[in-house]
């Protein structure tokens, strides 16, 4: 319990630091939101006036504290470019990106864990060799290219979906989820291949250890040894990998959104960076950073649950 409180506190501090770095970065990189909004032909007077309006003339720490204070209360500021609240801009888009990430993560787990276990169990068989080869191939292709291949194969050749024909979840939940399945698969495939390989080698490594022989000596069947003893031990490195993967696919989905024309936060982030729309960029990056840190937090706690050796006293 003490551990969880300490972890939570350190997570909060990390999020604060990241948010400050994000804020700092925008005041260091070249580019001026006032110029971006008014254009290069704007008169200096107009620029000064706009900067004042946006509060850009105040010192950095003041601006940061104002920003983070309102952020904590759910007010993420107003977009420089569009003049609407960042919150309303994100509200329609975050769920789409989250859904994409969530679906890919579920796909990774659902495909890779049974496949990894079987690949280890039927080592030295044709099945295992085929998965090895497929793994190598799939792993080598980055997600955005897998996305293009899927668009081509599933969309243009097999007509399983209409490329670019995004269906909003407001229109039809089923249609939305079906459309999202393809980009989710594009993100999931390379990670799935990596995880199959990791799990296979982890199971095989564990299977050679002494405690496995002990388990056999007590009369366990091969399946009992695998599912009651080996698997849990073999999953420890896999959890680390899945944690990193989850953070990774949050970022990866921003790119895949472009390939599949999904109106998630990916496209918005790219436009906002171009416009020097700090409140929008800051909000997105802070949210993504928070998610990544939160995932790590969950992984740490999962470790405690699964592996007694990592549990501390008290």
């Amino acid at each position: 319990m003490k551990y969880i409180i300490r972890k939570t506190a350190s997570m909060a501090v990390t999020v604060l630091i990241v948010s400050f770095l994000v804020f700092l970065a925008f005041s260091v990189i070249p580019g001026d939101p006032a110029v971006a909004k008014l254009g290069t032909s704007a008169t200096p007077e107009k620029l000064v006036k706009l900067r004042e309006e946006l509060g850009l003339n105040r010192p950095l720490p003041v601006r940061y504290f104002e920003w983070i204070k309102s952020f904590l209360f759910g007010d993420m500021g107003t977009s420089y470019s569009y003049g609407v609240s960042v919150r309303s801009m994100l509200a329609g888009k975050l769920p789409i990106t989250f859904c994409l990430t969530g679906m890919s993560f579920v796909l990774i787990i659902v495909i890779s864990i049974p496949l990894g276990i079987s690949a280890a169990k039927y080592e030295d068989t044709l099945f295992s060799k085929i998965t090895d080869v497929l793994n190598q191939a799939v792993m080598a292709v980055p997600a955005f290219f897998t996305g293009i291949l899927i668009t081509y194969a599933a969309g243009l050749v097999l007509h399983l979906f209409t490329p670019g024909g995004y269906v909003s979840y407001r229109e039809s939940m089923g249609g939305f989820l079906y459309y999202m399945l393809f980009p989710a698969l594009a993100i999931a495939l390379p990670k799935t291949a990596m995880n199959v390989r990791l799990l296979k080698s982890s199971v095989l490594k564990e299977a050679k250890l002494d405690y496995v022989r002990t388990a056999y000596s007590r009369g366990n069947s091969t399946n009992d040894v695998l599912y009651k003893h080996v698997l849990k031990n073999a999953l420890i490195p896999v959890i680390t990998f899945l944690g990193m993967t989850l953070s990774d696919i949050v970022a990866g989905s921003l790119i895949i959104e472009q390939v599949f024309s999904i109106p998630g936060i990916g496209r918005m982030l790219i436009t906002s960076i171009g416009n020097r729309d700090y409140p929008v960029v800051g909000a997105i990056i802070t949210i993504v950073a928070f998610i990544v840190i939160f995932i790590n937090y969950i992984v740490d706690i999962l470790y405690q649950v699964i592996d007694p050796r990592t549990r501390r006293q008290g």
Partner: protein
Amino acid sequence: MLDVTDLNIEFHDHLTPETVVNDFDLHMDYGEIVGLVGESGSGKTMSALAIAGLLSRKNMKKRGRIEFEGTDILNCPRNELRSLQGKDISMVFQEPMNSLDPLKKIGYQVEESLKIHTDMSAKNRKRLALRALSEVELPDPKGIYELYPHELSGGMRQRVMIAAAIISKPKLLICDEPTTALDVTIQAQILELLKKINKRYNTAILFISHDLSLVRKLCKRVLVMYRGNVVESGEAEQVFSHPEAEYTRLLIAAIPKFEKLRKD
């Protein structure tokens, strides 16, 4: 009870087949303690694993017969073998540090064979597990029941291994270098413990060691192995006082003699 005849084990994982056990014969009666001595690589562990039915089937050729109460361990179907493992034949391994599942509580591991072989209630299993833990002279069995392997010392883990091995009162207990990884005082305690178990339950023990002095303390009968062959066998006292094989003589000569050292 146990009859091993002409056991041959050959490895085929290299280009040339390698014989690790050659024409191994062993007979054991109920309640007997037999020592199996030899240096590393002499084939003693392989023979023991074969008797326990734990040799994997890959890259290995096995010939001969291992008969345990009428069951041919070498050739019987897997599930018939499994019904003996952990119930009638139990094994204690060399490395107590690695022989327990790090993620399972001691309690679970001690009572696992009961779970596999009986339909005893959880409450009864726990009762027997606690009794086994106190029988191997572990302090505070109730506390240890809830601990994980990494929270125990090597000697304690080996006691846990023994508790797990004897919980279903096996007829044959195979101990493969059970004390090698432990320090000398713990070694002596483990030997005493094995003797007690043997007396109390009439459990036959096949004790494997490279340490002749330990075997002498514990066993009535002894087999000496060298490079896959049994070079000598007989009553322990006889073998120690009048060794016939050259190799046995060398082994005995290799035992450090503290008495002699003190006099010099």
